[in-house]
């Protein structure tokens, strides 16, 4: 049985990668954002997870509109990043954990989640930046990766309720795994932001606080909206909260301690946040 040691939730805005590249962490604009991460870095240095199960969304690097899976699980030995077209460095590759991936895939399909499986999968900034934030400057990632991609690009999106249920099914899969890996669950993206249309620049601190305040103790509260309602509340890209909801489900329905929280406006066009939860 895998041991779930914690849940790490973070925004993944590309601009963060630019700030890291320029070394802007201590500038007045970026400092209030980056200061959310040292507590998570320290916690990880002690907790030493072996594997990260990461819920994120692709932004047009791996998936195109010709084939757009609602849920996709990686089963690759290695996951590369690649040029996304707007000037970020190409990030380090992740080592995969194909045996655990296939166990999760088997368990999910038995559990009636008919996911797509990917033996090849590029991971974009939504996976790389969260780890650049918590393992700064490492030569290679100290964790293996099991990536789970949720469609937040093309409607119909899966509902928040379905994403929480998917996460809970992943939790059951981890509980029935034969190995004793120490697993970190991650959800990336958000919080409220909108890049497109006349409402570009929209944020919603009230909704963000609703999400942050219910994430640990009452994630079902986040499932009362349809995906469309979430887009209205959180902005068209704020629907990335679906990744957080699924990740919270994968942590299991046990009490959580909030080890760390940081919420800051704005980073790029986004209300940015980081949270670390630990099973109590």
């Amino acid at each position, binding site marked *: 049985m895998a041991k779930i040691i914690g849940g790490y939730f973070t925004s993944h805005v590309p601009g963060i990668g630019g700030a890291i590249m320029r070394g802007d962490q201590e500038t007045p604009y970026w400092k209030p954002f980056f200061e959310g991460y040292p507590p998570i870095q320290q916690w990880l240095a002690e907790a030493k997870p072996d594997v990260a199960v990461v819920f994120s969304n692709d932004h047009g690097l791996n998936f195109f509109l010709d084939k757009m899976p609602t849920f996709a699980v990686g089963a690759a030995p290695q996951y590369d990043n690649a*040029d996304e*077209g*707007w000037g970020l460095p190409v990030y380090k590759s992740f080592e995969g954990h194909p045996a655990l991936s296939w166990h999760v895939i088997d368990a999910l399909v038995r559990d009636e989640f008919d996911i797509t499986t990917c033996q090849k999968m590029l991971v974009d900034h939504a996976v790389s930046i969260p780890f650049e934030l918590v393992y700064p400057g490492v030569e290679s990632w100290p964790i293996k990766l099991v990536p789970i991609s949720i469609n937040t690009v093309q409607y119909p999106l899966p509902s928040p309720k379905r994403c929480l249920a998917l996460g809970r099914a992943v939790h059951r899969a981890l509980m029935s795994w034969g190995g004793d890996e120490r697993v970190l669950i991650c959800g990336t993206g958000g919080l409220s932001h909108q*890049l497109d*249309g006349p409402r570009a620049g929209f944020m919603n*601190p*009230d909704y963000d606080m609703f999400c942050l305040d219910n994430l640990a103790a009452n994630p079902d509260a986040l499932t009362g909206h349809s995906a*469309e309602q979430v887009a209205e509340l959180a902005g068209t890209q704020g629907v990335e909260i679906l990744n957080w909801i699924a990740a919270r489900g994968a942590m299991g329905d046990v009490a959580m301690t909030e080890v760390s929280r940081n919420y800051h*406006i*704005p980073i790029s066009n986004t209300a940015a946040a980081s949270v670390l939860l630990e099973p109590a």
Partner: protein
Amino acid sequence: MSFDPVSDDNERRRAIPLFDGGLATRGFALNAMCFSFNEKANREAFLADEEAYCAKFDLTAEQRDAVARRDVLAMLDAGGNVYYLAKLAGIFGLGVQDLGALQTGMSVDEFKAMLVRWADEIPAGARVKEAV
């Protein structure tokens, strides 16, 4: 009349608007071109001969016109999705704040100032750090 959650969400898709099957169908060629810009050689080919590159992807007249005019709202109307359009914007050296300014009619500085002002909307007493 009873409340119908499906038409309620469909109304929301039209109003926001959200990138659903209708827009994804209309925008396929434009988004396919933008997706190709993940590769540097393709970005360079676009810059070298924009007309020929757009023709290769069979952009509709509406899409070709929106790209020629660098009109982001028109690209969205033509079915462009912002995740893919961002790659086209990158070719012109435009970031998401530049896109925001173009779409809202603000200057880039006004747009950035508007983003900062959202911090004023954080509710009083909201917990922005963990409880200690």
